[in-house]
């Protein structure tokens, strides 16, 4: 039986004492010692960065702060600015060499954001492809590797992959940062074509491969994964999407007449392969997981690409929504006790309105209309539209895509990574969608579609409507890319969420959110019970300016990606949040009043709130 406690805390005094009131950054936690980060005094570290990162100095934070405050043009205009070059990130996705000649290559990879060294700054992990033999094994010889970039806290990142021990070769597709063992450190689960990998964080800047012991390898083509506490027992369980029964040179599989009609002229499409069932792992709390897919009631026929845990009926249990490709999407209602009921058709979120299974890719959940219920958004293929499902309560969802103004553009785009986020901090959940076609030859066959496609930036206009504003956010976000993964998070700790977009077989795109205007934010680093690094599944209800917003701690969403686990609320012009109520999985509830804006506040069910290291900029 869960224990519910209500605590009312007044945060103003606490935070005011830490804020300092000036532009100087608040004290940061000293970096941990380790191979990736040798111990050094702050000044020495700053000197080292200055000496080795001269290009970044040109994009120094104070200078960019000015730009951020004023907007790039100095007129308050918001911008999403490509900072990939200055960031020092040189990861380049490699689909395994050669031409685009099978569906694994075109599926690309995601990206993960997580503070692996617990210094208050988001680091970036990029899953990498590999060269395969015709039967799908890793080819001998050197392989491209996934890469971990440590945030240097000055707008630049340093490759610490080898030092962190994450350079095991694999055809990696996605990732999820989560504290699977409850030791307060973010671990990393990497989904792959082939056995997946679970790395546990040793706390010294290095990771240890514990896949075998944990029993979460699998052997399929896994795509997205997500952690959440399914049965509220205090540890994180794991859902893994599996996609197709695929090998590069699979005998007996070829592009069907139907696939060719849809444009799959040179290699088989997803319709031509069998799907592979997803897997649900129960965390047994001792470092091992048990496959409970069958007992829990997972559906057998799906081609899973995206997954999100969310509490859709506010019963305190994490439900699951899965985006499937060319097969109906899954919606699992959590009945408790690790029992799931698949109700996507009944709920109206399985197929398109005309009854056709769509090509679901990425997925996210969020309360876009401010009614307190979590809605769903799933990206789809061309000739379909990205679907927004409004939660009407009682497990009844309505496809409101057309009315919301989200359908018209997406028919000619292939949507992948997506996220709800409050881009302009006005208190309304906006939507970002990464696009890119699956066929690199589509330009020659279509008058309307292109291989490279620009992302969608939709601002929530209120009243259930969205407005596409990509061009208003500057040229960098209008750039046409073969986008796949998307992770959102505050890379520079300035209170708004930046974006990392992966591009198949190319460099990623890191977009810094240089918001204009003066809207305020409140940000929360919610810790879990019992020392859990992240309180995944916690529900935050924040009231400010007469409006209540609901968000969940839900880092694993989008497409094959892992987002900032912190929760960001846009407050508009409100100077403070009147009330914040946090409900942790298991029912522990805290209520805070007069929550200040402009701070990162650490919330824990077991401790008093405090201002986080890695302050607002």
């Amino acid at each position, binding site marked *: 039986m869960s224990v519910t406690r209500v605590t009312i805390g007044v945060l103003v005094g606490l935070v005011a004492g830490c804020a300092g009131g000036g532009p100087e950054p608040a004290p940061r936690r000293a970096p941990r010692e380790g191979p990736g980060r040798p111990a050094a005094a702050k000044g020495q570290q700053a000197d080292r960065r200055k000496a080795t990162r001269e*290009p970044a100095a040109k994009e120094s934070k104070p200078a960019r702060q000015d730009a951020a405050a004023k907007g790039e043009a100095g007129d308050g205009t918001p911008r999403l600015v490509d900072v*990939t*070059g*200055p960031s020092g990130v*040189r990861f*380049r996705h*490699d689909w*395994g*060499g*050669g*031409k*685009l*000649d099978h569906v694994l290559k075109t599926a690309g990879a995601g990206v993960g954001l997580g503070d692996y060294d617990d210094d208050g700054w988001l680091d970036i992990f990029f899953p990498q492809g590999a*060269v395969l033999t015709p039967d799908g094994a890793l*080819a001998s010889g*050197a*392989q*491209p590797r996934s890469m971990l970039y440590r945030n240097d806290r000055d707008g630049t990142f340093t490759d610490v992959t080898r030092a962190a021990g994450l350079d095991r070769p694999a055809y990696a597709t996605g990732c999820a940062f989560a504290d699977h063992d409850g030791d307060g450190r973010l671990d990393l689960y990497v989904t792959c074509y082939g056995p997946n990998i679970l790395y546990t964080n040793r706390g010294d800047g290095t990771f240890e491969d514990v896949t075998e012991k944990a029993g979460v390898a699998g052997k399929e083509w896994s795509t997205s994964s997500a952690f959440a506490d399914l049965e509220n027992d205090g540890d994180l369980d794991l859902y893994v999407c599996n996609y197709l029964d695929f090998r590069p040179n699979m005998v007996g599989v*070829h*592009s*069907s*007449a*139907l*696939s*060719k*009609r*849809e*444009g799959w*002229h*040179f*290699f*088989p499409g997803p*319709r031509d392969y*069998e799907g592979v069932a997803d897997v649900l792992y129960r965390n047994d709390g001792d470092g091992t997981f048990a496959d409970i897919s069958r007992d829990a009631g997972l559906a057998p*026929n799906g081609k899973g690409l995206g997954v999100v845990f969310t509490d859709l009926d506010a019963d305190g249990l994490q439900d699951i929504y899965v985006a499937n490709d060319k097969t109906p999407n899954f919606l699992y209602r959590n009945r408790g006790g690790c029992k799931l009921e698949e109700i996507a058709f009944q709920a109206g979120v399985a197929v398109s309105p*005309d*009854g*056709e299974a769509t090509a679901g890719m990425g997925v996210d959940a969020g309360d876009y209309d401010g009614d307190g219920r979590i809605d769903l958004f799933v990206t789809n293929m*061309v*000739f379909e539209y990205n679907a927004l499902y409004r939660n009407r309560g009682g497990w009844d969802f309505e496809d409101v895509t057309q009315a919301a103004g989200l359908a*018209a553009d997406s*028919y000619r785009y292939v949507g992948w990574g997506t996220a709800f986020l409050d881009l302009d901090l006005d208190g309304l959940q906006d939507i970002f969608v990464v696009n890119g076609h699956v066929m*690199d*030859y*589509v*330009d*020659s*066959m*279509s*008058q*309307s579609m*292109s*291989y*490279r496609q620009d992302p969608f930036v939709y601002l929530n206009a209120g009243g259930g409507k969205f407005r596409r504003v990509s061009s208003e956010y500057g*040229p960098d976000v209008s*750039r*046409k890319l073969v986008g796949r993964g998307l992770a959102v998070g505050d890379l520079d700790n300035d209170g708004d969420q930046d974006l990392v977009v992966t591009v198949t*077989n*190319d*460099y990623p795109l890191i977009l810094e959110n240089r918001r204009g205007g003066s809207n305020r934010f409140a940000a929360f680093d919610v810790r879990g019970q019992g020392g859990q690094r992240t309180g995944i599944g916690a529900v935050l209800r924040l009231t400010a300016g007469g409006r209540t917003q609901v968000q969940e701690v839900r880092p694993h969403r989008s497409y094959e990606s892992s987002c900032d686990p912190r929760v960001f609320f846009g407050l508009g012009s409100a100077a403070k949040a009147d009330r914040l109520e946090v409900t942790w999985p298991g029912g522990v509830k805290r209520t805070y009043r007069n929550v200040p804006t402009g701070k990162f506040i650490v919330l824990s069910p077991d401790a008093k709130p405090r201002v986080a290291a890695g302050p607002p900029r």
Partner: protein
Amino acid sequence: MRNPRRSCGVAALGLLLSLPVSGAEAGDGEPPEPPGAAEIERTWIHWDFRKELNLAVVYSHEGLPGLSSSETGVDHLELSPRFPRTFIGAEVEGNLTEEAPVNRLLGGHVQLAAFDFHLRLEVDPTEPTNELDRYEFMAQDFWIRLETPHIDRLSLRIGQVTVPYGVNPVLAPRGRFLLPIEAHDVGFKWDWGGVLKGPLGDYDWELGATTGAGMQPHPPHYVFEEDAYMLTARLGAPTYWDFQYGLSGLFGKSPTLMLDKRLGPPVSRWRAAGDLFYKLLVHTMLMGQAFVGQDGFDGDSEKAFGMDGDPNLLAGFLVEVDFVPPFGSTEESRREWQNWELNAQLASVFFDLERHDSDNNSLTLEVARSLTDKLTLRLDWVHDFHVATGTGVEDDAIFVSLYYYGR
């Protein structure tokens, strides 16, 4: 060490393909080399080369139209004179980003977004076997596409393009036997010139100015001496909607369609057409087209095929169903059924609405089977019936084609 860029030396394509290429490099297993500069040079071009082969034969009950009796008699299996004929083809296509050098040269306001150069060497069985005329180059899509970053969905195609008249293909057909009604009426769906396409709300408008010369790459004197031209326009739903509809018009002077499906001397023409397309779920596509128009309205009606000298009104319609069987109780059996594609098309053209015997009608039933990624086998039964006096004979013909399209 991997070189993230690769050079391509197709000299004939000049600047386009002599530029560095990435995105298709072979994997040698080593991590990519960091560019080193502060800015990242992303892949700015993708290109591809494809090969094409079509073997097409016909068995005709009444003999092959266009072939003299000395060359073939009735009841013979021959190479097909109908498009798509027997051919070998090659295609180079690609797409570029705004960072491509050619686009930097263009200054940012106009961008070369894509190109497609698709040529075929076809066998014309109506020509004697010992003549070089038996082999001719044909194109089906040979263009560059320009775009501007300032207006979404605005593009200009220059080269051999799909004319904006009648239904627009969802995806450019490759090796298709069934053609839209303009192929039965005007004689072609592709022409040389330019097409400007842009948005009108959710709809697309298109304006085409082409030579009226059809698919073949004609020498300039053909256009100038024969005074052929074609202006076309279409306003309709975009090709990515499940339900598409459009209105289009054609005005100009273009070659007449002869009995053997070849083109004769140009004649003045106008047409007004409507088209519908509906994708019913994923397995069924329905298409309908209708037009009215006139040939020879500019005092040249004697050139119009099937006319008696007066520029009378003509009309036509086409209906087509494309169906992939959605059968199968298991995933495996469903995939097996999805290798089959069934088509039915009925096309009628009334060359003179004032004459009851001026119509040509054709019913085509097609069964296609995907054999491999690259190979498709098609079997078509064409039933020409109620053929206008003096324009041909009623006939039944069976066409078999084996189509290869691969990299």
